């Protein structure tokens, strides 16, 4: 009588993983397959895609994009790693406040920050001149803004990893070497997987960024893809053809991630050392404090300009211009973050426990993240705009699907890192006394890693809140998120109102992050 149940119990973990895999495949893989199918069955002249890729200009744009992404990555590492050391490992005064302020811009859409910098360095900006304007509207200006935007990713991952190094390792080195030598030779080596992950994320985000280069009039490869989707002779076939090199690049990035990061990041990002080895800066404390201050100023400057530009008039007009976009953002982002967290619990745990089936799902999620967002957008439109799925395509569900596909890696990796820190024997003991997999997840994994799971939800939520490029191609009519509304109003809306909406977006993200911080603090200091 119990045979089917017994079979179910025996394979319960695989079934959970299979169900999660199905959802991930539908969200992230299906759009890619549909796009490839369209390319193969295209009625356009056979020479179309080949002719598109035969243009030397296209490859020049790709080379330029790769150059910009490489420069941004190198500079972000060059700035972010020392800052990570200062914030996590030195006694520089005010370092944690500076770290929080420096890190904040990574939760905002880059084009808002570009708009903020324009208010500073445009010709009539607060510090503007013809020279500053020329510098801003150039490849150098683009790189500088992207470095300012993405460096906090490197800083945060470096600081996080530095906090997790086994102190015994460094203490042993300190017996024979000076602190700086220990920092550069031991600590830096130990956090290499975290730095590789940071480099990969910054490179992928820089490569697919569209809003900032468009604003600063720097032609890059994503602009060429977008021209095929936004121009008069709508040519999705050509756009897909242009995507092929990017898919190749995404696969190379994926292989690099497998080779240099993979599960190693779980160890370096998850553990927390009981004692931290702090480098006393001595007379260099002032320099450390100034570096932190400078990082905080760079983080806050564009936000300050936006708030200043908004003024009282801008803020008072927010209700009229906001529409339902804030609620749309919050509703869509909470739902997407909850789904991603649920998937992350199953897949992230399996990843941490080295289950074979988890690796391809993780790879797929990583591919969807490093792929240019417009490609995913076109694929989702082509996949879901059918009569059978009209109810999904015309509702918020399509936004939730898009975000789940793009940002799933955030929740799976965060939960994997958390789960990897706990021993497997707790789950094994429960399994030995007959506890089914679902119950083990609910009673052991989830309570034990509730902070990691909460962090995964929060990160996924914030990534969705800041997203523009994924959903701009297919958001349902009348249900645009706040970022899309700011983008569609940006050129023609009253500047003060646009700046005020941008400030609102910032305030919402700040509120969410601060709320999470307070909740974590309360959990630590509250009754046990």
């Amino acid at each position, binding site marked *: 009588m119990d045979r089917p149940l017994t079979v179910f119990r025996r394979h319960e973990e695989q079934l959970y993983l299979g169900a999660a895999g199905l959802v991930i495949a539908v969200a992230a893989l299906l759009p890619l397959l549909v796009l490839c199918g369209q390319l193969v069955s295209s009625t356009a002249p056979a020479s179309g895609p080949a002719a598109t890729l035969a243009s030397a*200009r296209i490859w020049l*744009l790709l080379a330029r994009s790769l150059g910009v992404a490489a420069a941004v990555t190198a500079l972000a590492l060059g700035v972010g790693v020392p800052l990570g050391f200062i914030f996590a490992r030195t006694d520089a005064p005010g370092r944690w406040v500076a770290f929080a302020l420096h890190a904040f811009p990574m939760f905002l859409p880059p084009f808002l920050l570009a708009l903020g910098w324009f208010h500073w360095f*445009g*010709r*009539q900006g607060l510090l503007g001149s013809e020279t500053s*304007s020329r510098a801003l509207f150039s490849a150098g200006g683009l790189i500088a803004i992207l470095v300012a935007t993405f460096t906090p990713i490197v800083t945060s991952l470096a600081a996080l990893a530095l906090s997790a190094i086994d102190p015994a390792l460094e203490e042993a080195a300190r017996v024979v070497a000076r602190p700086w030598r220990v920092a550069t030779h031991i600590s830096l080596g130990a956090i290499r997987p975290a730095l590789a992950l940071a480099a990969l994320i910054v490179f992928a985000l820089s490569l697919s960024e569209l809003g900032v280069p*468009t*604003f600063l*009039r720097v*032609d890059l490869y994503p*602009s*060429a893809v*977008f*021209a095929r*989707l*936004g*121009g*008069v*002779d*709508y040519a*999705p076939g050509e756009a897909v053809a242009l995507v092929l090199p990017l898919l190749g690049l995404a696969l190379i990035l994926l292989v690099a991630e497998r080779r240099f990061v993979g599960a190693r990041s779980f160890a370096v990002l998850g553990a927390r050392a009981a004692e931290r080895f702090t480098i006393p800066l001595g007379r260099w404390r002032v320099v450390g404090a100034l570096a932190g201050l400078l990082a905080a100023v760079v983080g806050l400057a564009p936000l300050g300009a936006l708030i200043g530009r908004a003024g009282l008039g801008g803020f008072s007009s927010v209700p009229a211009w906001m*529409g*339902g976009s804030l*609620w*749309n953002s*919050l*509703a869509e982002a*909470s*739902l997407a973050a909850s789904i991603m967290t649920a998937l992350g619990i199953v897949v992230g745990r399996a990843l941490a426990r080295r289950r074979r089936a988890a690796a391809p799902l993780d790879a797929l999620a990583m591919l969807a993240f490093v792929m240019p967002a417009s490609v995913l957008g*076109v694929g989702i*439109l*082509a996949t879901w*705009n*059918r*009569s059978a799925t*009209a*109810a999904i*395509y*015309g*509702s*918020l*569900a399509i936004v939730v699907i898009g975000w789940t596909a793009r940002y799933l890696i955030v929740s799976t990796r965060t939960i994997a890192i958390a789960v990897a820190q706990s021993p497997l024997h707790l789950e094994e003991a429960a399994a030995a006394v007959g506890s089914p997999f679902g119950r083990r997840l609910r009673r052991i994994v989830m309570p034990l890693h509730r902070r990691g799971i909460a962090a995964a939800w929060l990160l996924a939520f914030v990534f969705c809140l800041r997203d523009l490029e994924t959903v*701009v*191609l*297919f*958001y*349902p*009519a*009348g*249900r*645009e998120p706040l970022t899309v509304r700011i*983008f*569609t*109003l*940006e*050129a*023609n*809306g*009253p*500047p003060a109102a646009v700046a005020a909406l941008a400030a609102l977006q910032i305030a919402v993200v700040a509120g969410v992050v601060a709320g999470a911080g307070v909740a974590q603090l309360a959990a630590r200091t509250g009754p046990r």
Partner: protein
Amino acid sequence: MKTLLLTIALSLGCNRQAREVVVYTSVDQPFSEPILRDFERRSGIHVRAVYDTEETKSTGVLNRLIAEANQPQADVFWSGDPVRPFLLVKRGLVERYRSPNAAAIPSQFKAADGTWTGFAARARILLVNKKRVAPSEMPRSIRDLESPRWKGQTALANPLYGTTTMHVAALFADLGAPAASGFLGNLKANGARIVGSNGEVKRLVAAGEVAFGLTDTDDAHEALEEKAPVEVVYPDQDGLGTLIMPTTVVLLRGGPHADAGRKLIDDLLTPEVEKRMAEAAAHMPLRADVATPAGVRRVSELRAMKVDYAELGAVMERIQPLLREWTGL
């Protein structure tokens, strides 16, 4: 939290309301949205709108309409120019509809077969920064964009998108391909800045980043409203003429709410809407009986470029490869 849950439930569960209309529009959101909301209030029909981003003005939503052709999501396309609807007509995506409110619109601004109807027009103008250009040097023609006097000091929007596409197509139709290509080549050689949008041209001129730029009357109106030191020049009044572009509305074939779509079109074609567009966005009314506010010219007062909007649609498609090469994309 309750509101949030309610929003999620409503958004996911009640996807298609009985009394609603879906409109895609490339008319600037600050101007189109109040009109749509007003229609919603008066008619009780819920309006769901998709607005274009400035960078892809007119083509972003147009391409979305084409991409969604197999399963149309929209009922009405309210275009910022009169040419792009022809691309939909050509693909068989438009339903004929002769609105009773279109009777007073002059015949050159509407299709005899009811496929499209124009109203509230804009013009392509030169927006000049008065601090950078002396009155004696004021440009008078779009040809001034290629003048060495203004080398590196002018701007226009990327001609792959927006009304600039139509303007370039009109030049190809009017001057012929060799002369128009030569003009584009001269612009590049003269260091004209190619920017993301007409709004960006306005911003650069208003900020004095460039001396003058080619943009639309509504963008110029915004600069004037913001008290920027700018002046509007209607170009080529003693030659080629100024390009006039009525906004255009079409009913889409197979849209989910055709009746509501017709009601919305009827509403957009009332004199009241033309009046509001004139007051809010300096659009020129096409009806003779709609008053224009100070500073807004009448179409009849201008020497207009002689163009066939249907022909421009074909030219626009034909010159795309050339424009892509010119822009480097």
